[in-house]
């Protein structure tokens, strides 16, 4: 049995180094803790060598996109009459477009996952939706309208998926809140510009809706072409990449850097699209902000429709009056966003939690103002209250964005933006429409608006609660990036790292946390025992290693690569195999088919599979005799043999065995353990979870002991035997079971 070699740099040392870098990392993220005035934006941009062009170019794109959306909203009756298609068909086309807009950010995020090409995609999609806008002017049928609107919706997904992450990477952290505020204000400005354009083209110049779309498309095309000089600076230029550079410099001081010698290819361990999405939703701040986004979506999307009816019904405002009202409130929002930038920046720099709490208070204020506006007996009072409420809501957009994007590495920001939009539009928009519609049927339009206080206050509390999480999540992100870089550097410099290193693992089943800051290390070819009482968390830890369960925090590193969030199936391909506790076989399937199912990850090489199955039968002749028998008809020992044959077929580098001996006769256990020894002797590292301390310690040199979700012992097996305080619990439990209590 190979002896555990001492790592050249162990994971704990790396973690300590990361702690030193964390403060510097926070500063790199723009969280300096300073309380003084923030420097003017132009000064920051000049000193950092960044221009206004990207902000202007992306702002123009977002304004241009609004032209077509607004045009379609106000000109729908004319389109219906011209084409001879029903309003239902128009509404259906619009619904499909909305769906396309809601879903498009996800594929956009997937398109930029491996390469930072957000700028080129933003421009290309800008050109595309401009062409579709022009094309809308040439539509002659419902099918054509549906096609052109769907294409437009899909292409404009780049706005919600790519623009904000791109801005965050173009502009330095100390300017981000202002940049995002100004960019958001461009969206509000579009609410003023779009009606003006439609009024000019249709009212003054006398064009039909076709002309309006053609002109809007041409204006949009000009904006898109104006953005042609936009360049993607790469992921995390100012933060994540900077953190990596800092970590590399830190390593250079202690290690002589040798040529790269990566064990696992990057593609093998880089997160896939859904793995990233799942990983994001495990971050507490992101999870809460998504809930806040959903509530925000109720206020932002269906509420607007009810507001139009309110203005018409309560105050008798026609289309013109409503247009002026919306333009005025949008104008106030623009002013509010321009004012908010600087204090927002200051709040974030001092403590990101403040900006989240401020966001919560602003949302609460907004819903109160909305309720007061609905009840206001004075017209101008109503207008002023709504304008202030919308201004408060407008400020929420950059606050939420900067919150979400600060706690995640740069490569994942497009995914986070896409998720935000789905929660905002898909969840908030749709659920809000049902919710408000139901209220409207019972309590009328004023009752509907007042009812917003319920989701509004809930959303405010959720949003404000992220104030207590965001700093910890920023630190966690910084820690992960630094640790990852340092481990990479150690690997590149030829330093030794353990094959498997779990560090600081927390795991919860729902709200119940079952693992607490658990560390575990396994070296190449090593066999370790993981012992503990029932319910100590041993099996859960195996699930985290094999990828069946995902930790809420901590990292799992395998052959130097971070695999904490990659799918279980991909981990099997990397060489990690788990034999779950109990009878880990497919009962209704025959023995040989069970083996074939184990070989699934070997792909289509049937001959290689057959060879390995034959080798398994040679190792377990009793299974060969029962090759066509259903697995459920085998004895307990035979079923465990079949389960163990998985290791012979897959030949993993790391084998996780959960409770192999449970309920088996000693002679059968002996046979199985001989096979485990043989597998280990051939070079497979083994983590053996056992209830039986005697059996486990007979096999291994190194043992871990867990109790109540915590690692209580990590050391030589002989050392554990001397720890009566720990082992007593296991023996007492075994005695209690044996006596039938």
């Amino acid at each position: 049995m190979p002896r555990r070699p001492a790592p050249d740099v162990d994971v704990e040392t790396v973690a300590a180094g990361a702690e030193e870098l964390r403060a510097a990392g926070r500063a790199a993220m723009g969280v300096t803790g300073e309380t003084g005035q923030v420097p003017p934006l132009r000064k920051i941009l000049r000193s950092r060598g960044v221009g206004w062009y990207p902000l202007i170019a992306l702002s123009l794109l977002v304004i241009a996109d609004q032209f077509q959306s607004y045009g379609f909203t106000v000109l729908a009756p004319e389109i219906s009459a011209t084409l001879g298609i029903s309003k239902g068909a128009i509404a259906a086309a619009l619904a499909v477009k909305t769906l396309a807009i809601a879903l498009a950010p996800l594929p956009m995020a997937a398109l930029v996952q491996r390469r930072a090409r957000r700028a080129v995609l933003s421009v290309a999609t800008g050109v595309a939706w401009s062409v579709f806008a022009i094309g809308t002017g040439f539509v002659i049928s419902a099918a054509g309208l549906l096609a052109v609107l769907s294409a437009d919706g899909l292409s404009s997904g780049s706005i919600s998926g790519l623009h904000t992450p791109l801005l965050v990477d173009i502009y330095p952290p100390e300017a981000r809140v202002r940049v995002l505020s100004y960019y958001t204000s461009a969206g509000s400005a579009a609410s003023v510009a779009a009606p003006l354009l439609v009024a000019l083209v249709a009212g003054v110049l006398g064009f039909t809706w076709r002309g309006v779309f053609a002109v809007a498309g041409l204006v949009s095309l000009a904006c898109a072409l104006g953005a042609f000089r936009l360049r993607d600076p790469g992921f995390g230029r100012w933060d994540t990449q900077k953190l990596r550079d800092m970590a590399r410099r830190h390593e250079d001081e202690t290690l002589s850097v040798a040529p790269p010698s990566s064990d696992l290819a990057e593609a093998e361990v880089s997160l896939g699209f859904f793995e990233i999405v799942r990983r994001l939703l495990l971050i507490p701040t992101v999870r809460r902000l998504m809930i806040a986004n959903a509530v925000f979506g109720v206020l932002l999307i269906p509420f607007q429709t009810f507001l139009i009816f309110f203005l018409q019904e309560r105050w008798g405002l026609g289309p013109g009056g409503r247009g002026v009202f919306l333009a005025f409130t949008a104008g106030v929002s623009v002013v509010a966003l321009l004012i908010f930038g600087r204090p927002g920046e200051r709040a974030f720099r001092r403590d990101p939690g403040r900006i989240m709490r401020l966001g919560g208070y602003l949302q609460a204020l907004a819903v109160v103002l909305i309720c007061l506006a609905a009840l206001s007996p004075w017209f101008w009072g109503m207008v002023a209250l709504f304008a202030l409420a919308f201004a408060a809501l407008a400020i929420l957009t950059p606050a939420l964005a900067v919150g979400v994007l600060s706690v995640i590495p740069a490569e994942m920001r497009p995914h986070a933006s896409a998720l935000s939009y789905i929660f905002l539009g898909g969840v908030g928009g749709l659920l809000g429409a049902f919710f408000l519609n139901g209220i409207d049927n019972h309590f009328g339009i004023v009752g509907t608006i007042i009812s917003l206080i319920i989701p509004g206050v809930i959303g405010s509390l959720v949003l404000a609660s992220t104030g207590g999480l965001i700093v910890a999540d920023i630190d966690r992100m910084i820690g992960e990036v630094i640790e990852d870089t340092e481990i990479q550097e150690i690997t590149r410099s030829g330093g030794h790292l353990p094959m498997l290193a779990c560090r600081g693992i927390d795991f919860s089943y729902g709200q119940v946390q079952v693992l607490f800051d658990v560390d575990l290390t396994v070296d190449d070819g090593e066999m370790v025992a993981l012992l503990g009482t029932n319910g100590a968390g041993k099996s859960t830890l195996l699930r985290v290693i094999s990828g069946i369960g995902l930790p809420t925090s901590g990292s799992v590193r395998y052959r130097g690569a971070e695999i904490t969030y990659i799918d279980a199936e991909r981990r099997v391909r990397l060489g990690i195999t788990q034999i779950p506790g109990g009878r880990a076989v497919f009962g209704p399937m025959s023995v040989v088919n069970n083996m074939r199912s184990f070989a699934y990850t070997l792909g289509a090489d049937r001959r290689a599979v057959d060879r390995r199955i034959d080798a398994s039968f040679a190792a377990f002749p009793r299974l060969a005799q029962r090759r066509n028998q259903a697995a459920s008809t085998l004895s307990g020992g035979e079923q465990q043999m079949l389960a163990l044959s998985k290791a012979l077929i897959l030949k993993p580098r790391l084998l996780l065995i959960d409770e192999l001996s449970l309920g088996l006769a000693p002679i059968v256990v002996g046979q199985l353990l001989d096979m485990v020894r043989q597998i280990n002797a051939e070079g497979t590292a083994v983590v053996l979870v056992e209830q039986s301390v005697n059996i486990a310690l007979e096999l291994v040199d190194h043992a871990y002991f867990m109790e109540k979700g915590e690692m209580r012992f990590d050391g030589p097996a002989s050392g554990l035997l001397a720890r009566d305080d720990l082992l007593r619990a296991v023996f007492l439990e075994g005695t209690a079971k044996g006596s039938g209590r």
Partner: protein
Amino acid sequence: MRRAAASGRAVTTLLVTVAVLAPGCAAHGLDFRQDTRVHILRPHNDSTVELPVTISWRVGDFNVTGPDDGAGSDAGYFGVFVDRAPQPPGQPLSWFARHDQSCATPAQCITPTYLADRNVYTTTLTQFTITQLPRSTLGSIGGRELHDVTIALLDGQGRRIGESAFYVEFLVKQKSSVV
């Protein structure tokens, strides 16, 4: 190699997009400038009315000749479409019977009653009185139902002339509007 594959995907996407969009679009016979030949005088857009309601309009540069089998674009009569869209440009009134299995030929079915059942009316006058309205599919606001009326120009054969359509939306007190 990778760049070539990416270019190939981009070209394929472009071709598929064009193939999907092209059949739904046209380059000829589209009106980009507003047609001002008809101007609806009353009711005003978004006004509240009571039944019966008279829609009246002013017409210019169009000879009202009635259904005389003429096919010119400057003469014919008016189609009045209540809470529904007119037939597509260039289509005759028989278009409304195109899916009616009970009609041997769509043209045979087209009678004033048949059209009225579908909220389609024709007139040579510049006004039209609505005495009953179907239940609104456009929604209601404060006890008033939202309805719309579209006027289209028809040639002597009942074909819709060009893309022009003239549109007014109004609110009708709910009790009086239900048929």
